[in-house]
């Protein structure tokens, strides 16, 4: 228990400091921080539909965040989750609309697995082998592959083979048998949330309880010692990046089957990038990813409401997001603040 507390202590502190600084900014610029945060909170959790939308927003962040966290755990920086997400979405959409007459219990798993395999290969094979055997840095290769994926999907949708008849750059709708049903009517919340939570539990189990997770983490912390212990370091790099891609791809697929039901030209809102922040805030802990994804999802849904009701510009939520990222990345700063605080207390006591 103590251990858990200790590991979430810094991220929570980072969030609190970000909120405080956010208040100061609002005060200085003439807004009422209490009202703003209240409406932010109501927007995210105030009504059942709001909660549902926040949860729905969290789904792709959780799953992609898990993918990024896996790579981080293995000491690898998968910056291309966005592209792997697209690959997953493309394949899920294609399987979703081109196969007719399948029962849902075959069609949905088929689409999900197809998307995972494709994204796993996309993220794992090229960047993985390039890293393992030539040392090419995965930040570069995953990002390149990401661009390729994104432009490839633009091509598919804009007068490419996946474009629906007509002039709108979008794919046909997927078949009903491939749709993951909605839990709450008129919201975007689908049963995909259970896939996300199951994925988090699975990744936790995989990383901390299995031989494979043990190896991936060992390689992530210290390649040399892992090699000396007899592990196959290059193989582990390829596998970790693949696994990372698999989850980013799953996220894209779940979003298509559960929410979008078709591929639009601009259907992502940068989940692959936000996922990096999600994983960082969670300190790469798979269970932590669920909570940190919820936080960012809540900031997303809440900020729209805040903009309408407290007349605070929605960008303020972005500022808070930015501050959180800053303080997470710079936990050294927090250490310093903490020690300054301690020193002061000591001096107070002494005087």
């Amino acid at each position: 228990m103590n251990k858990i507390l200790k590991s979430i202590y810094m991220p929570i502190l980072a969030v609190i400091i970000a909120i405080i600084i956010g208040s100061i900014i609002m005060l200085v610029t003439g807004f009422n921080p209490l009202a703003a945060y209240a409406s932010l909170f109501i927007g995210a959790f105030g009504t059942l539909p709001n909660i549902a939308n926040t949860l729905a927003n969290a789904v792709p962040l959780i799953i992609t965040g898990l993918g990024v966290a896996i790579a981080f755990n293995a000491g690898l920086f998968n910056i291309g989750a966005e592209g792997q997400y697209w690959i997953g979405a493309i394949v899920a959409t294609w399987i979703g609309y081109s196969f007719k007459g399948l029962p849902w219990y075959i069609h949905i798993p088929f689409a999900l697995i197809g998307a995972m395999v494709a994204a796993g290969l996309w993220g794992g094979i090229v960047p993985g082998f390039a890293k393992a055997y030539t040392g090419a840095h995965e930040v570069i290769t995953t990002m390149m592959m990401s661009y390729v994926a994104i432009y490839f999907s633009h091509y598919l949708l804009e007068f490419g083979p996946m474009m629906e008849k007509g002039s709108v750059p979008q794919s046909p709708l997927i078949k009903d048998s491939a749709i993951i049903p909605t839990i709450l009517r008129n919201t975007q919340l689908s049963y995909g949330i259970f896939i996300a939570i199951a994925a988090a539990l699975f990744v936790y189990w995989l990383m901390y309880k299995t031989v494979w997770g043990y190896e991936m983490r060992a390689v992530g912390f210290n390649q040399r010692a892992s090699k000396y212990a007899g592990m196959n370091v290059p193989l582990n790099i390829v596998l970790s990046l693949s696994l990372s891609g698999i989850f980013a791809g799953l996220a894209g697929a779940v979003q298509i089957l559960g929410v979008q039901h078709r591929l639009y030209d601009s259907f992502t809102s940068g989940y692959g990038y936000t996922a990096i922040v999600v994983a960082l805030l969670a300190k790469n802990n798979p269970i932590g990813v669920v909570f940190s994804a919820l936080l960012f999802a809540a900031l997303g849904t809440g900020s729209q409401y805040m903009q309408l009701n407290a007349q605070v510009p929605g960008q303020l939520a972005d500022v808070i997001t930015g501050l959180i990222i800053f303080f997470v990345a710079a936990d050294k700063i927090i250490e310093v603040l903490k020690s300054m605080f301690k020193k002061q207390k000591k001096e107070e006591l002494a005087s």
Partner: protein
Amino acid sequence: MSALLEVNNITKMFPKVRANDGVNLVVEEGEIHAILGENGAGKSTLMNIIYGLYRPDSGELKFNGEVLNLSGPHEAIEKGIGMVHQHFMLIPVLTVAENIVLGAEPGGISYNKKKANELIREISRNYHLEIDPDAKVKDLSVGLQQRVEILKAFYRHAKLLILDEPTAMLTPQETEELFGIMRNLKNQGISIIFISHKLDEVKEISDKVTVMRRGKTVGTLNTKETNEQELANLMVGREVVLRLEKSEYNPGDVVLSVKDLTVSDEQNIEKVKNVSFDIRSGEIFGLAGIDGNGQTELIEALMGLRPIKSGVIKYNNNNIEKLPTRERYKLGISYIPQDRQQEGLIMKFSVADNLILKEYKNSQYSKNGVIQYKRVFENASKKVEEFDIRPTDYNLLAGNLSGGNQQKIILAREVGSNPKLLIAVQPTRGMDVGAIEYIHKRLLQLRDEGSAILLVSLELEEIMSLSDRIGVIHNGVIMDILDGKSATREKIGLLMAGSQIEAKKVEV
């Protein structure tokens, strides 16, 4: 002489551990003050407090009569305190000069290379610390890297220099050089705090010795008025046996047989040339040599960590030179690598996880790919007790243990698995006398139970007291294999230096 540094009643808690518990210490101007203490006694913690890396929970530091309230090393440096850590903190790809001036560049933002080099040359001259400012740190020997660390301190005008186990990684020759430097500094009025587990070194170089035990300072002695036995007893708190009892040499079958082995380094330069030797069961084979004469390449080749050029490696009569590293472990070979932090441990894994680093895949610890943590913890609590790893909480990260206790984790894993062949490189590096006594006993016990042991050490003392036979390597060639009983220091020394003929003369 007056007190330069005063440490009054310092206490420092880590989660679950009181690392420093009312520590007192006085260091005078111009003295070399040794700190002795068991692994985990709190020496490095105390040094880190003096250097401003850790904040004490209570107590007071005085430097030059002024109370220090350090918020970081930069303040310690400003006051004139320099430190060379147990594990170096240099940036390998930068040059000597760049490493030295890093963070305090002359000319501010725009790095003035010429000026920096000049400054460094001047300091080298003043303190007799010769070095090439343009060399890349990664190309330097350990001894020279250490010199860079020392220069770094004096570039920042240190008056007190803290050396945390500076000799643990040095060859005897390098140690002598370091002592020369230290004497020089002392003559210039610099004070030095010197940490070492080697009693003879403490005896040779220090003016005073302070002994620490379990977080407390138990006394300060004048070096001249004490002896090694007294120091050892004071440190451990019981009578320590500094002499080894060794049973009769009773060799069995050949376990490891190396024939005409040639190995190259990354630049394709032959580092091991046509080496042949056998090690039998029930035998400790010592490999003596000056660092960098092919030992590393030889051992890595034996473990499958480096390709061989030609030759044969046989284990129990089967060729193993093509087997991957893991397969060699599976055959019952154990390996203690030279660098515990880089090669032997995952610092961010717990002690328990580190204890299964070679065996996590075996049916003993995993079923269908799932690690059986109940067994892992059982193993951990057993090993922690057996090898006296402190603290005993096996859920701690290895990186949070003291240097010597980190080494004990590796030993517990490699020796505790009762290997048929143990390849041990500097197995007792950084361990206190009590722990060394225990490890030496365990090694002899392994030997008596019929294991074969290849012991590589830069310390002749260790090789000579343990080995049944001693191979001396020079420039990648085994110069001679001597009988452990009759080999003399002088003869091994000559062979290590590459002089076969001189060595022959000694025999007569």
